[in-house]
């Protein structure tokens, strides 16, 4: 069981961003994707999720054998893909409690047992406590007036409640101070297990101190140019990205 991306080409109106992108993330593993700005990391995340602004020119993305390319965003989500956004948007008037509940009930099939409100709130409060989100936030509108740290923790709360098969965390560490970072990372680590595959997209090594990846990939020019173990991340931290550009410019 894996998320298998093969020869994916994705473009926006002005230009091609992902170029024959290949990646396989088996369930149970955490893969980190690092790279300088503008190499297509966020594009990968959004294209997988079916964002309408991105055109898939060719290639495929199989989630446990099911093709995701061409499907509607909510269908992709219900198949088991979760995207933790880099810039989560505000939804005024829609409370966190109601929003997550709507997301959960959208997944229930008619023959599933009835949704239990008490079970729901029990799980919700437990996760909120773990993520140090005050319980009053259940009545707050999603992301409205939230600080950067609160938004990211809210993303992880949704991740924890929805239990996807595969999660893509798009620069989840951006804008976080050390303490918030630790809380978020611990939340993600708590999710880790044989039933989920996780892609962590990040610029910086420091998140990977808390979420130790099984595999590290370097992305440049719309594709993965190098893969390795956790030590690759440390190497990047030591040397920066300049060597990547130099070594792989010829390919791009």
């Amino acid at each position, binding site marked *: 069981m894996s998320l298998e991306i093969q020869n994916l080409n994705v473009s926006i109106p002005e230009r091609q961003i992902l170029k024959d992108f290949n990646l396989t993330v088996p369930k149970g593993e955490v893969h980190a994707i690092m790279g300088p700005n503008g190499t297509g990391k966020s594009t990968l995340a959004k294209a997988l*999720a*079916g*964002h*309408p602004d991105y055109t898939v020119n060719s290639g495929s993305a199989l989630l446990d054998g099911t093709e995701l390319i061409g499907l*509607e*965003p*909510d269908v*992709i*989500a*219900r198949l088991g893909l*979760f*995207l933790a*956004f880099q810039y*989560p*948007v*505000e*939804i*005024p*008037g*829609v409370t966190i409690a*109601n*929003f*997550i509940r*709507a*997301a959960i009930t*959208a*997944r229930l099939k008619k023959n599933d047992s009835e949704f239990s409100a008490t079970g729901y709130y029990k799980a919700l409060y437990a996760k909120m406590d773990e993520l140090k989100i005050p319980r009053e936030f259940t009545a707050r*509108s999603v992301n409205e007036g939230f600080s950067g740290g609160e938004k990211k923790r809210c993303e992880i709360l*949704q991740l924890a409640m*929805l239990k996807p098969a595969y999660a893509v965390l798009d620069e989840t560490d951006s804008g976080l101070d050390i303490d918030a970072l630790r809380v978020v990372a611990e939340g993600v680590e708590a999710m880790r297990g044989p039933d989920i595959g996780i892609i962590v997209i990040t610029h910086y090594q420091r998140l990977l101190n808390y979420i130790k990846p099984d595999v590290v990939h370097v992305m440049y020019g719309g594709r993965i140019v190098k893969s390795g173990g956790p030590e690759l991340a440390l190497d990047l931290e030591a040397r920066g990205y300049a060597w990547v550009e130099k070594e792989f410019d010829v390919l791009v």
Partner: protein
Amino acid sequence: MSASEISQQETPDISAERDVGNFSYKTEYDFDAGKGLSEATIDYICDAKGEPDWMREFRKKALKIYNDKPMPGSWASTDLANIDMDRISFYMAKGRQTRSWDEVPQDIKDTFERLGVPEKERAFLAGVEAQFDSESSYSSMKEELSKQGVIFVTSSEGLMKYPEIFRKWFGKVIPIGDNKYSALNSAVFSGGSFIYIPKGVKLKQPLQAYFRINAEEMGQFERTLIIADEGSEMMYMEGCTAPQYETSALHSAVVELVALKGARIQYVTVQNWSNNVFNLVTKRGIAMEDAEVRWIDCNIGSRLTMKYPAVVLRGERARGEVLSIALANDGQHQDTGSKMIHAADHTSSNIISKSISIGTGRSTYRGMVQIPRHLKHCRNNTECDALLINTNSRTDTYPAIVVRGEGNSVQHEASVSKVSEEQIFYMRQRGIPENEAMSLAVNGFVNDLMREFPMEYSVELRRLIDLEMEGSVG
């Protein structure tokens, strides 16, 4: 399913099927003034009701004013010219036009289903039955009320049985010459409520217009007068979320509220007339010293609604409030707003208006706030927010704020927004289908106001908004 599949899917064409003119219906009336309007119509009405002479004179005077007044000027919708006055019966009583259940459009039946309207109410709402049997639910409340000295009767009964109170206030809040359509109502009004709450009585339960629907008259020219004596409190609810079958193209009601010293009146309306109806309503309340009048208004139906609930703040420290939600779908125009007339020191008024325009629907906000020169320490706060769903939806805002004097303050905020692509994508990424995502966003937009509606309405209203949203995406 994809957005394009949703829009190609067969959705009930609500505007066409609600065109009532295509249906034949039985007529069974004891009283029928026939079509057209003249002094003879007035005489017919007064004779049928056995009204006193002063009312007959009042009505005839109103008819003259109605005939003399020109149509509303260039500020108003030109659609008004499409009201076919010749086809309107201005007085019909003790009976109702009915049709067979087969003739009821499928989309209306579907709406009943979706809103969970009780079976026994559907036949009445759909115009299949002439009467709604609410006697049982009403009678116990009636007992409770009469023990407290509360009067809750039809306007006719009010005139006949309680002439002193009735005559004292009737036509005082909305004078006979206020506007063309209130003059029309003054000439031919029938039905509506007359309510008097004695001093100090604070009603725990709201009074519902619904209880009176099986009374004799057609609902088109209702006249309601509510007097809350000193220190009393009450809430009145009218209308329902289920679409109501309405043969008459013109609905022109007048509502007068009087809140005496320290009293509080809340008037809640949910309007969902069928899409052929011109709904032209004049509503105004007077708030005396330390009193409060609060209008909570939701307009979802009708072809054209023109309604500007107003409060005249006549006593010191009086408070006026209008909370309004309007939803305009294809072919609809919700022209709503408020008037706050400050006439004493230390008065305050609050207007919150939220409108949603879907498809070719048009929402208009008109607000008048007046604080004259001689007053002090008056405050108004106005917030009008519009949400446009489609690229061809339309909204207009016409605030008219006239403030003079010292120490008065007025605050006006307006916004126009649309549900952003990013919001929809975010919600869909959580597995929520597109239609539901739109509904969530739209319900979120009106959420603050929705909370002010009594529970019975707010649950149904949310479902109704979901229904209106369907087929609007894409």
